[in-house]
């Protein structure tokens, strides 16, 4: 049996169960719409959903890129000096431990409602996994290779650029992978919290708010589906980047003989 058939089969089974529950429980469409009703709603609302998805993608992408670049630079600082690490890392943890939901009103107050606030929330939620992973990577450099660089009288800059950063790439990409799943969530959450005042062009988070107050439950499910697709695109993009950077040399892409 082909391996890809398994998720297809389990998915089909799940949809059949869904219909079964709907038929035998006697639940109303506005409590549990069928997959077909959701697809119909998605088609009806396609323009709004696509516009909203585009807006959310913009916020998520900007926040993600900000987290990716700032996370990279922060890790370089943290990796460079132990005293810097000791001074900053605990506070980064504190920032990470604080639920974003608590910070959101403050973010709106500072960054302003709309896109700037949404980008800030997205950045905040996807920044830490990148820093944690990349810093770990910079500190995990093979000691034999460090000795080799020292024997070669390498400068500090050469050691960082030619040795530490490349050897930390698998860690950085692992951090980006986590961030990619978090960025759309952060953007949607940000829109839900701060996007209301952004005017007519809200994102998916705004649609959730709007459909919910109008009790358009199938459309709400359709929004969930759209968000899911958006998340998938983010993760797929990072998976592609991961492949592009690592496949030639990293052991995780080693082909095995069966």
């Amino acid at each position, binding site marked *: 049996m082909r391996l890809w058939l398994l998720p297809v089969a389990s998915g089909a089974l799940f949809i059949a169960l869904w219909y079964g529950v709907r038929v035998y429980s006697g639940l109303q469409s506005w409590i549990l719409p069928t997959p077909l009703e959701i697809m119909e709603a998605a088609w009806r609302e396609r323009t709004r959903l696509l516009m909203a998805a585009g807006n959310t993608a913009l916020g998520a992408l900007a926040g993600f890129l900000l987290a990716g670049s700032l996370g990279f630079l922060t890790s370089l600082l943290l990796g460079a000096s132990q005293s810097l690490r000791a001074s900053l890392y605990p506070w980064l943890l504190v920032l990470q431990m604080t639920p974003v939901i608590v910070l959101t009103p403050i973010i709106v107050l500072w960054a302003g409602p709309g896109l700037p606030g949404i980008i800030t929330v997205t950045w905040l939620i996807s920044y830490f996994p990148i820093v944690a992973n990349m810093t770990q990577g910079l500190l995990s450099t093979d000691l*034999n*290779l460090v000795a*080799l660089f020292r*024997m*070669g009288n390498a400068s500090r800059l050469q050691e960082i650029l030619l040795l530490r950063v490349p050897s930390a790439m698998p860690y950085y990409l692992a951090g980006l992978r986590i961030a990619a799943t978090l960025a759309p969530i952060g953007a949607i959450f940000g829109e839900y919290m701060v996007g209301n005042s952004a005017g007519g062009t809200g994102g998916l988070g705004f649609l959730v708010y709007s459909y919910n107050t109008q009790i358009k439950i199938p459309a709400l499910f359709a929004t969930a589906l759209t968000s899911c697709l958006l998340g998938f695109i983010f993760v797929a993009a990072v998976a592609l980047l991961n492949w592009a950077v690592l496949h*030639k040399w990293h052991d995780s892409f080693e082909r095995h003989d069966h």
Partner: protein
Amino acid sequence: METPEPIVNFHSVTKRYGSGPVVLDNIDLTVCRGDFVTFIGPSGCGKSTVLKLVSGLSPWTTGSVSVLGAVPRAARDRQAFIFQDATLLPWLTTQKNAELALRLRRMPAAERTAKAREMLALVGLDRVREYYPRQLSGGMKMRVSIARALTLAPQLLLLDEPFGALDEMTRNHLNEELLALRAQSPFTAMFVTHSVAEAVFLSNRIVVMAAGPGRFHAEVAVDFGYPRRSVLRERPEFQTKVNEVSRLLHQVEEVPA
């Protein structure tokens, strides 16, 4: 015959890591230009530490060490170190790995490419220049490591159990290649190994070391001339020398630390 020029001098050298036990105790050593000195002994006798002191990777505690007329660190540009592990950067091709030592010295790209190519051809790897380390066998990786060291044209080559992880056949081949390379671009060698046969085949001097604390137990001169070929291993005098060194090793290993 010209008088040999001493290039490494240890005078009453003692080494301990921090406040730990004494790793090397009162070592005196002179290595002359053209020597191939091998250090052999039980684990913990400090044979790798000797190389670390010469390379300046680790400081000595008391006594004095001079290398090529300078303190070890200042002589780094005239020596090269071959580690037990091939220490290749996994994200670089064979060619780029072979260029690394020259790149760290900021040699212009075209020049270092040519130099690395030449050395890779010398160790028989010109066909795998675009391969990544994970595509190479253990023996090939070690050849890249040797090529990289030789791009520097070092006066002194330090080798810390470079062939320890290889099968015997590959090891024998690489021993012969190492001597052939040395005939082409002469370097003085300080070599660490666990293999008596390897030590006898390669060296003109073998230092047998004892552990607890690490010290020199005996020195054996190996006066077969160079070049040496694989047939040497079959000669009775080779076996006699192997037995002599093995006996000395037994002496130091029987003494409890």
